[in-house]
């Protein structure tokens, strides 16, 4: 009896994945635990191991194909095992389209076999029947909605909100779907090796598009800015950096110092380290800071765990490791989850200040502008100092303007007195 290889769920939010590369071609022998294929999820590219030993009897999803979690994608067995009764899985239906036909549903159930049926349902969008019915009648694409019900379920009010937003001219009807192109698998004649298939990049773009829109549509976010005198932080880095480089082989960046400063400030301003859940504010006991990393394909945000408990060299090492692996698309999904605050830096592009878009579900995000030397008033004289603008976006549902400003003020104070960063 052949063993079915199904597309695994590799992250909490993963609903589908794209097969980038089969590492064992059809007909080759594979041992249980050996890498079998590469899959691109909504957040990362991963190698997946063979669930059983045997011969790869049949590959059901070609390289480049995108299928829902738990879909059978290959069969492993011994030559002679029957393989003919497994139909090739159907691609996921384009969002906003009609519900799957009966034939497609039957085929899907057959393809899923006995056990994987339940697992397939885990990949579904969590939505109440009532919300789904209203969304269908109103032609709202449920994949663009953020659930505010228990466990993030989309409920009636979420659909009604989208209906109201569309009435206000904010949203296109569901018929115009930016992610539809990524849903249809495209045949790939030659393996793309390390290259990310263009449709997979489009898929990632679709996910980013959806999340950004969700963030702006479902929160009350606004941005505060403040200018920080970075003279002391520059001095600290110039004096401590080379020592750390020599002794610990870590290269301390300004981002590292700002992440450390934000973690220290968050510990003192717990109202910022929070999220909106259902009908109230939920303060988070731990501080995990996401660091935005720009890739050609789009943005990823790996997370520095317990950033408030980490020393500057530890933070530097963690950020360097995470961002290097992010550039190779080698992050695990769990390394991009659980953030309670995010830092994003556009200073290298000469941006002074900007309005970061909240990285849901967190309640605040810090944008870092460029460091530059400019004249500042020192008493009655003008002096040349290195300054930087910090932009704090926060969700006004979770925290009011004054406490958000106090947090930003504290952050400014720490960076202007950076020896505070050395305290445990």
């Amino acid at each position, binding site marked *: 009896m052949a063993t079915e290889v199904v597309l695994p769920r590799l992250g909490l939010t993963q609903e589908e994945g794209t097969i980038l590369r089969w590492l064992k071609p059809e007909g080759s022998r594979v041992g249980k635990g050996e890498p079998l294929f590469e899959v691109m999820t909504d957040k990362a590219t991963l190698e997946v191991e063979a669930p059983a030993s045997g011969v790869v009897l049949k590959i059901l999803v070609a390289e480049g194909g995108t299928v829902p979690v738990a879909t059978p994608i290959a069969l492993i067995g011994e030559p002679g095992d029957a393989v003919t009764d497994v139909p090739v899985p159907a691609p996921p239906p384009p969002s906003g389209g009609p519900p799957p036909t009966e034939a497609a549903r039957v085929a899907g159930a057959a393809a899923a076999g006995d056990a994987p049926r339940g697992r397939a349902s885990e990949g579904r969008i969590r939505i109440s029947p009532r*919300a789904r019915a209203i969304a269908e009648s109103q032609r709202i694409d449920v994949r663009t909605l953020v659930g505010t019900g228990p466990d993030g379920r989309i409920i009636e009010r979420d659909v009604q909100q989208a209906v109201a937003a569309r009435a206000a001219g904010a949203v296109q009807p569901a018929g115009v779907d930016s992610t539809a192109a990524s849903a249809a698998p495209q045949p790939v004649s030659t393996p793309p090796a390390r290259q990310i298939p263009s449709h997979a990049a489009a898929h990632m773009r679709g996910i980013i598009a959806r999340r950004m829109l969700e963030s702006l549509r479902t929160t009350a976010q606004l941005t505060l800015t403040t200018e920080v005198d970075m003279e002391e932080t520059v001095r600290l880095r110039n004096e401590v950096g080379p020592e750390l480089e020599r002794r610990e082989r870590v290269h301390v960046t300004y981002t590292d110092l700002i992440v450390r400063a934000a973690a220290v400030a968050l510990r003192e301003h717990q109202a910022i380290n929070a999220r909106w859940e259902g009908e109230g504010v939920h303060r988070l006991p731990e501080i995990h800071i996401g660091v935005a990393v720009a890739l050609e394909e789009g943005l990823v945000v790996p997370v520095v765990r317990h950033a408030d408990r980490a020393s500057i060299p530890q933070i530097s090492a963690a950020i360097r490791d995470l961002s290097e692996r992010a550039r190779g698309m080698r992050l695990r999904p769990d390394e991009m989850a659980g953030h309670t605050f995010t830092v994003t830096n556009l200073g290298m592009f000469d941006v002074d200040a900007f309005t970061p878009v909240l990285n849901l579900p967190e309640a605040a995000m810090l944008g870092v502008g460029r460091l530059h030397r400019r004249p500042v008033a020192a008493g009655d004289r003008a002096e040349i100092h290195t300054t930087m603008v910090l932009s704090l976006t926060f969700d006004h549902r979770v925290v009011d303007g004054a406490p958000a400003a106090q947090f930003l003020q504290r952050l400014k104070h720490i960076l202007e007195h950076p020896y505070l960063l050395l305290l445990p």
Partner: protein
Amino acid sequence: MSQPTMPAAPAAAVGTRTLTYAEALNEALREEMRRDPRVFVMGEDVAVWGGGGIFGVTKGLVEEFGPQRVRDTPISEEASAALAVGAAVAGARPVAEFMYADFMGLAMEPIVNQAAKIRYMFGGKARVPAVFRAQEGAGRGNAAQHSQSLEAWFCHIPGLKVVTPSTPADAKGLLLSAIRDDNPVVFLEHKVLYATKGPVPAGDYVVPLGVARRAREGQHATFVGIHTMVHKALAAAEALAGEGIELEIIDPRTLVPFDLDAVVTSVRKTGRLVVGHEAYERCGIGAEIIAQVAGAAFDALDAPPVRVCGRNVPVPYNARLEAAALPQTEDIAAAIRQVVA
């Protein structure tokens, strides 16, 4: 027993008094016995001892109607139920009382295999217009063998109607309908409700079987419950109203036939359903109600329906444990908050 004769035409309902639930039942029995000579009452201690059953529902009846129509029976529930079935087939309209619903286990053969089946198996040539009355429920420290709510047993059996009044007016109006029904009716009262008071129309006040009552109007969630749960839900609704949650409460009043339309209409409005009963949660009537609503109005549900029921344990004697085993007002409020979250 004398040969039954035909009943008189019902008198019109006139005026309203405040009666207890027990007094309302008593009034229904008395008025129907006056009107219809085929009606008689039987059961343990219904006539002589203690003055009309342990809760006084048949109080004074033996004095007015005599021992032939108000008959004490031995402690033999099976014989009592079988006698009622035979009398009903022969043309009488017996109202057989069981002291505790828990004891009806002894009478299941005549109720389930005879009363519920005879009309069907004789092709309609025989009918069983019997009422099997009992009280169920907990809250009086009567312990595991005298506190159960067993309505689901009877709802399971085709051929039986099942009635569960929660107010004095419904107790009277539904008992009149039950006695006049040509089919066997299991009429389940609640021991804690006997002393509760409410307005009861005088005269011939009939509440049809299969018509629910909306006990409270609201738009945020629907609660369906019977017996004490209606009252606990009303108390919970007061607390919830302070939080901006308006609870709609539906008392189905009869479980068979069940007024699904009333529940579905409410759920279509609110999108949320909580079902409550004192009976054990497992395989209780709540599961049936939720299944029926899910089948009829799946696309109206905005949250998974929730049950607030008795725990799946024998009802404890200890007062604190008994309270913990029963669904309370706060449990209902918590369930409502959960579904509207």
